[in-house]
């Protein structure tokens, strides 16, 4: 499933010989180039990749690891699905460059269980790289060894969170860890580990080839580069698009053929719901961030049903470790059901929104911290409409 509009960064021509160039240079050069480019994590959290790599590279440890987070589970996100099958070689290149840069010898691809059908393809590509001397011992004739193993997930959205992913790799329940210390300091088996999204890693050889300057010229000041969007919902042309950061939501909607849009859910279930009035806002870390998920709702949609779908999702996917997320999500879902039956007072709704605010700051990991987002944004923007319709 290729990109539906003209690719800007994710053009096969942009990769050139970035891979060889990177391995011919010094490891720290790669780290500095990535840092200079301003690349930020493309999984949704948006942590500066260069900073992450710098922390891992400068950590003193006998072992380090590179992990590709291919546990794409955010509702509405399917851009990694495309990258994993269409840009497989480039992903491996990115991982190898990361390993070289930080001093790791082993890498894992944590592939979500639902994508098991692409396992043989990825393993085949890894095999091909071994045959071409791009993986294994003395890669490209250099004194650098690197191995990549694919590990499957088993159906848990929370394992997309980096410390839960590491726990899963270690053979535990996918329950996020206490942080600090962070994975770059104490990660897989206690060693410094870099966990990066598929899109982030595929971007790496491009930046090494075209240079940080070229990358910086696309996007906005705090959000350099482009974002792959996976668009679904009430649009004529659902699919994967690539837009530079700073693109206005309304322009994006025009491109995908959205009509009579009532609201757009940006960032998946854990993102925010942008109502019609705010469509002039732009997609960037400064304004409305996203890991790529864009779900469009037209005016025929019942916003409460949509909210219910989100809250059911979170209640089921919560790992259950910490109190605010485990019980809080259930309370928010119960609240949605109460609203549906016309049994939720305005007073109790306020209590739930306050609860949501507590969850946003007191939960142990990103899931609990962002699961109240749809509740708060939908009830804030569409509260009157919802309460009027459900009594």
């Amino acid at each position, binding site marked *: 499933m290729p990109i539906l509009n003209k690719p800007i960064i994710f053009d096969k021509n942009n990769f050139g010989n970035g891979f060889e160039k990177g391995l011919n240079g010094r490891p720290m050069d790669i780290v500095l180039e990535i840092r200079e480019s301003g690349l930020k994590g493309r999984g949704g959290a948006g942590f500066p990749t260069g900073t992450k790599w710098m922390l891992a590279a400068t950590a003193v440890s006998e072992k380090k690891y590179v992990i590709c987070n291919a546990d794409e589970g955010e509702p509405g996100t399917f851009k990694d699905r495309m990258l994993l099958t269409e840009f497989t070689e480039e992903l491996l290149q990115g991982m190898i460059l990361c390993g070289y840069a930080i001093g790791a010898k082993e890498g894992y691809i944590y592939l979500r269980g639902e994508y098991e059908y692409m396992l043989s393809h990825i393993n085949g590509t890894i095999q091909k790289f071994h045959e071409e001397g791009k993986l294994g011992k003395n890669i490209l004739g250099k004194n650098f060894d690197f191995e990549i193993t694919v590990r499957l997930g088993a159906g*848990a959205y929370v394992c997309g969170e980096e*410390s839960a992913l590491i726990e899963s790799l270690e053979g535990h*329940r996918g329950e996020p*860890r*206490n*942080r*600090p*210390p962070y994975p770059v*300091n*104490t990660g897989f*088996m*206690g060693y410094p580990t870099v966990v990066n999204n598929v899109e982030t890693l595929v971007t790496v050889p491009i930046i090494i080839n075209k240079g940080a300057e070229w990358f910086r010229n696309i996007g906005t000041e705090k959000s350099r580069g482009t974002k792959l969007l996976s668009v679904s919902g009430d649009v004529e042309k659902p699919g994967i698009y690539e837009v530079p950061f700073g693109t206005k939501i309304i322009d994006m909607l025009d491109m995908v053929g959205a009509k009579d849009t009532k609201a757009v859910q940006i960032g998946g279930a854990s993102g925010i719901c942008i109502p019609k009035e705010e469509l002039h806002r732009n997609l960037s870390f400064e304004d409305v961030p996203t890991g790529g998920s864009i779900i469009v709702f037209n005016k025929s949609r019942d916003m409460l049903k949509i909210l219910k779908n989100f809250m059911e999702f979170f*209640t*089921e*996917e*919560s*790992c*259950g*470790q*910490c*109190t*605010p997320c*485990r*019980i*809080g*999500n*259930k*309370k928010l879902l*119960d609240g949605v059901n109460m609203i549906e039956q016309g049994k939720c007072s305005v007073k109790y709704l306020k*209590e739930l929104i*306050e*609860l949501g*605010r*507590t969850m*946003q*700051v*007191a*939960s*142990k990991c990103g899931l609990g*911290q962002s699961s109240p987002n749809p509740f708060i944004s939908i009830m804030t923007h569409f509260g009157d409409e919802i309460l009027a319709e459900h009594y």
Partner: protein
Amino acid sequence: MTDSSFSSRIPTAQQSLKIEKGAAHEIGGLVDIEINGKKFQVPFGTSILEACKEFDFHIPTLCYHDDLCIAGVCRICVVEVEGMRTLQSACTYPITQSIKIKTTSEKVRKARRHIIDLLLSDHYGECYSCVRNNNCELQSLAKEYGVDFYRFGHVKEPFYEIDNSSYSVVRDMNKCVLCRRCVRTCIDLQEVGCLEALERGYDTKISTFMDKPLAEVICINCGQCINRCPTGALRANDPSDAIWEAIDNPKKHVVIQTAPSPRAAIGEEFGLPPGHSLTRELNTALRMIGFDRVFDTNFSADLTIMEEGTELLLRLKAALVDKDPNVKLPQFTSCSPGWVKFIEHFYPDYLDHLSTAKSPQQMFGALLKTFYAQETGIDPANIVTVALMPCSAKKFECNRPEMNDSGYKDVDYGLTTRELAQMIKEAGIYLPELPKSNFDEPFGEASGAGLIFGATGGVMEAALRTAYELVTGREVPFENLNITPCRGMEGVREASIKLENVKPEWSFLEGVDLKFMIAHGTANAKKVMDKLVAGELNDVHFVEVMACPGGCIGGGGQPIPTSPEIRAARARAIYEEEAGLPIRKSHENPHVKYIYQKFLTEGPCSHLSHKLLHTHYTKRGNYIA
């Protein structure tokens, strides 16, 4: 603090950043921090909770426990750290750079209140009808944060069925707050591993393998999970209704034997600080509530020393003189029923190492329904024997099918410290202010050696005081008979006593370095057993194992809460009480001498003693069908 050197489950994230306090000062590893506007310095790696405790800032906790590794799941201890959007849990956050902490603020107060409301919304049961009424951490938190209505509702119907399949531990998951303390206790602290969180999300529950009833899995009944549970989700199986019935029944002759550890701790149930033994006051209380006789378990502890000590010497003779390959050394003590079930499950091929002597409780029970019945002329069918123990596993022990050598159920009920305190309170008695009184005849006052059984190392010390004197004719070469290598809270202790200038009949022991080991807590027992399996204990002769950390004073029936300081205080009380007794060696107890003269006339380890005072074990294995 769970020792990370043997537990595989300590989160790696919690292991990486600690520096010892002393080292921190030397290498200049001190960090400047600010708490609520005041400036302090702490060693690098200290958690915010530790720093706040050190400088007297109160932070509420729930899943945190002094004995266990960090969990960071309840989120009650969250604090504000300047510059961070989210609140940080104080128990998990290591201080590695200069930060400004606020232990209270609008966000923090609201968060804590919400968390308590959420826990209450899921908590089925009223405080009125709960065994932990007035001693419940959730209740205390609710009071501290001024909960006066159920913000998010309250559970109307129980969701889980109560699991009371076990004689010892009862699980009511409707009250569970998922703090994971029991999981950390069972897997990390005790290395038994029968409780874990199953399922995910809102359906998460603490359960056993395949949700089987507790009696069908490898639970050893040590009750350490009960001691650490903050609510009434875990409790012991309480027989006090049946005991009241027996007391109220004029036909029944109800006798109680009291163990030293409950006596050292029961004051805590009446508001006293830990470390005050109320032995004599308790005797008065027990008679007041209607027990017909009050006996001292220390008597049968002395008897255990005689039997087990003789057994050890016989084993040594069989091994060193007769070179009998079937005789197993080292000999392991067998008075801890949690430990016995542990070895039956996890090391069933090594049961021959266990002493065949029963525990003091069971020896006493057998004697009460034979010897005592004879002496007093009371029909043993009407004698009800109750044992006051610090132990939850003793409830299982007295129900073991083989424990009826008297022809009746030797011990009818095992009663814990907490349960007896409840009975005393029900009778309107304030224990600490009662006058003192003595134990009843014909068992009377026991020796100090029997008393120190309560602390880890006590059985070993008592055994050595007797065995050494028996073999050499001299007292143990330690000041005041206090064998200090046996004492202390270290997990595994090792020492030896040289047997020199022995009496002629023990000449085969001349020059032998009697090597012994002491372990408490089943994780340490596992360490010792793994060494045994690896063949590394070939020169060790005697090992004392107690299933509970701290020994019996930390037992599953003792007052809640527990902590290293509380257990140390109780152990101190035991040793202090013992030091002041007139007789301090088991073999000098006149009542013990009397028993061997009049009743067990063939002496220790004879056929008659074996019938009443020794037992056998069951190979259980750890496969759950």
